[in-house]
């Protein structure tokens, strides 16, 4: 696993940490970062539980395009997400991010590492 930080997210996170009390977790370009170990993929969340994005990872290096687009859709560290529904056989899933809803396949959902808000609080 490789953590993608194409967007130089550290600056965005620094800000969000201040404003939204995101737990201070070290991020680095070398894999796997300690901060993602306690996190799970967004598809593994219980339905309707609020969680926060802690990072975007890509299983293979060639998926960085997917990760980039996910960030553009709003899946950025610190953002609140919520799993709304799973289709039959668990794929795809519907995820609320900010005030939008997106359908994602499991392969894409695996890129989004999240942690429950209640756990970190």
């Amino acid at each position, binding site marked *: 696993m490789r953590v993608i930080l*194409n*967007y*130089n*997210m550290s*600056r*965005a996170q620094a*800000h*969000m940490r201040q*404003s939204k009390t995101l737990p201070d977790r070290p991020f680095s370009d070398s894999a796997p970062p300690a901060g993602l170990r306690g996190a799970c993929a967004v598809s593994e969340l219980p339905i309707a539980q609020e969680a926060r994005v802690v990072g975007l990872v890509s299983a293979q290096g*060639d998926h960085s*395009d*997917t990760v*980039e*687009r*996910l960030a*553009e*859709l*709003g899946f*950025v560290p610190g953002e*609140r997400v919520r799993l*709304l*529904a*799973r*289709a*039959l*056989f668990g*794929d*795809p899933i*519907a995820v*609320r991010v*900010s*005030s*939008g*809803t*997106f*359908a*994602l*396949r499991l*392969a*894409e959902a695996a890129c989004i590492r999240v942690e429950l808000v209640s756990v970190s609080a």
Partner: protein
Amino acid sequence: MYSCRTRLGVRVTDTAAVPTNLAGPVFALVGNPNCGKTALYNLLTGSRQKIANYAGVTVERKEGRLKTQTGRLVRILDLPGAYSLRPRTPDESVTCDTVLRRLPGEVAPSAIVAVVDATNLRRHLRLVLALKRLGYPVVVALNMVDLARRRGLPIDGELLSRELQVPVIETVGIKAHGADTLIEYLENCATQDSSSSLSEHATHLSVSDSDAIAADYVEVERILAVCHLDVVPLGTVSDRIDRVVLHPLLGPLVLASILFLMFQAVYRFAKPFMGLITDAVGWLSVALGSLLPPGVLRSLLVDGVLAGTGSILVFLPQIIALFGCIILLEDSGYLPRAAFLLDRLMGAVGLSGRAFIPLLSSFACAIPGIMATRTIPGARERLVTIMIAPLMTCSARLPVYVLLIGAFIPDRILSFGIGLQGVVLFGLYVGGVVAAFAVASVLKFFAKGQAVNPLQMELPTYHWPSMRNLLLGLLERAKIFVGRIGSVILALTIVLWFLSSFPVAPAGFVGPAIEYSYAGRLGLTLAHIFAPIGFNWQISLALVPGFAAREVAVGALGTVYSLAASGKDVAGQLSPIIAASWSLPTALSLLVWYVFAPQCLSTLATVRRETNSWRYPLVMAGYLFALAYVAAGITYRTALWFGTVS
């Protein structure tokens, strides 16, 4: 074929028709998908472009004009939605290439109207910042403010404008006067600035580096915090609907019921209206027949024009019912949910839920369906979707189905008020879908080791379909349908009447006179090819004009049988004639033929344009012809065999 007409109509206002030396600024409407750009475009320019509640309704650029009170012109560009300035799909590329001025010879925007969904500011504002960085003068159209306020969001346009440092104008794209303030603003721009001074600003056009993009995220959070908009709405009505609609078990049931009811509605709703039209056409042809002296003119009008066009006009109610259902589904926001439910199934044949909306559009007409594949990111998935789109039964095939079902399938109620004819119609549609899936899985065989297709599809908030939108949409369809009858179909009908009437058979000719005519001879020749699958020469002949427009096949049968009939058979009464003269295996064979039937020429032309090659349209025509022939042959032989057994 019907919706394609409106799309083709777009070309009237396309760049070619607008002189490029026109003074006046060019404003481009840019924004995320499904934020209401086209609704605003319609309000600004008085157009009636299609709007609906899902991402990717608009897939090409359109240009329209707004005339100010002082007589100046403001040109408005409507562009497909884009999530960022780094395109992933062909439709997003259209927008990015326009904004980044990569299209030589096309009109470049001199300023940008950034359309923003007030209920979804976080994601939408990031694009605004990126657009601002390009150096364009930007004005923000804060759309759907009514919806945002109803949800309790404290939207303050002035505050937002101060923080964004660009003008912000509140709009409601779906209300008749929702864009008046924006129109006023654009008028002022047109009178104050000349277009050249506006465009000078837009000089350094480059997609900025990732540092700037990261800064955008921070900036948007800051703005939202200042405006007290950094809240996430909880438990909306949409979410409650989704709990049922997206449910793993209930969801598919809801989907199946909706589709099934749709086809029953097409049959049940349309029936009484069809009767009225049939009677009217019948009355007209009797009246004309008694007014005019027997001869060429009476034959042309009664047997040619009335029999040909009347037999197609009868299907207007059905077309209206079908489009009514489709518009309601599109407008409510249900379509992406259906795509969500079907994603897994489509994944099995190498597609994704994203292919669903183009395929569903193909039920109206394959042409807008093929255009809509521009929203699919993967090139291979897009190509496969294009190739199978014609297997979705387009509305032009509906007249053929309804005519044959009406003539050969008994009008029985099975149970629970479900009619047998509606079930057969549903079965034919399902047949096309099953065939499409089979073709896709065969094509999947040739593409091993391909990456998983991305889905990443937005599920919009539901809203009540707008009655205005529905009525305008239906009116448009009706106009197009009747317009086609009055133009293409009428012309083809007259040509066919001529070919079927001349040369006149000599006195000593044995057999019906029509068999001596050009059309009769052509039909008899073609019948050699189609006899093995049960088609007589009349059907074989009717298939020919069917390539220009599907429904003309029905009109052609109307003309041919009307001419051949000796007595006073009237136009619009085709059904009993064929019921008497065709065998059941022939009828079934023709029905199956039309499930696959090779494409009309306009579809093939669209495929050529969208794939930029002759190869794919030729492959498409070839494989569909082969499939149609084989499937119709199997149906014919099987039905014959059953006929001899029982």
